[in-house]
């Protein structure tokens, strides 16, 4: 659990832990969620996740996002300091019925995931014209 910012210090005390030997609890990535007339956009910071290790699942009205964080490590590696102590990202959201879960789009670029959940076409807000009598 204990980590040290001062790398030289931790070397002397030998208190470092191997990167891989850590209990796996998922990281909840920081997200931005905003709504436009067409749908909901969700942007999540998931550094270290590649397309192959990202999974989005819409089941019923729940959207679950899971990603595996990967970075090059070698066997002989010793962790000296760690802000990030898990290799799994996970978050889930309950969607409402006007959202169209069959047309969700997702783009992953430089560790940033952008998810667009459109509103059902028939349920998008319509502007109602006021007719003069």
């Amino acid at each position: 659990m204990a980590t040290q910012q001062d790398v030289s210090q931790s070397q002397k005390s030998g208190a470092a832990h191997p990167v891989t030997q850590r209990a796996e609890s998922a990281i909840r990535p920081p997200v931005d969620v905003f709504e436009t007339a067409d749908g909901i956009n969700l942007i999540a910071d998931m550094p270290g996740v590649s397309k192959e290790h990202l999974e989005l699942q819409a089941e019923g009205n729940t959207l679950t996002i899971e990603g595996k964080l990967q970075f090059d490590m070698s066997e002989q590696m010793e962790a000296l300091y760690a802000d990030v102590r898990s290799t799994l990202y996970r978050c889930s959201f309950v969607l409402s019925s006007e959202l169209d879960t069959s047309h969700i789009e997702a783009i992953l670029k430089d560790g940033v995931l952008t998810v667009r959940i459109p509103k059902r076409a028939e349920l998008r807000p319509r502007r109602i014209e006021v007719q003069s009598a």
Partner: protein
Amino acid sequence: MFEGLWGYEHPLSSQFRRLEEEFDALFGAGTSLTGTRNIRSLPAGTFPAVNVASTPQAIMVYVFAPGLDAKSLDISIQQNLLSIAGAREIPRDENATYYRQERFSGEFRRTISLPDDADQARVEAKYVNGILTITVGRRESAKPRQIEVR
């Protein structure tokens, strides 16, 4: 209408997270076993997160900085201090309704003190999937040597 998007979590999970953050603040990130923090350490949750590891040949610094233009990063090394500075501006859609804005926006700088044997002349950096990996070589003399008994 979109209450669901406010978060699908167990009511206790935020309590647990707070507990975890407090634990981190007390004993975790940037804190040694004796509870002494490095003078340049930053509070938990600071962007970008950093991991540091070492091998017999090199010191590896992983900077978790997604969504950046790698060329705009300013990486410098002086004495044994490695510093990484940059900015991530997140454009805001004026016509949208925001429910959550947790992602970092603005300028950042992190300074990491490296071990004494860090070789300033051998530094490499690459940016893949939002992680900036900086490899700093270690000086020959510091590598463990096998001593033969005659």
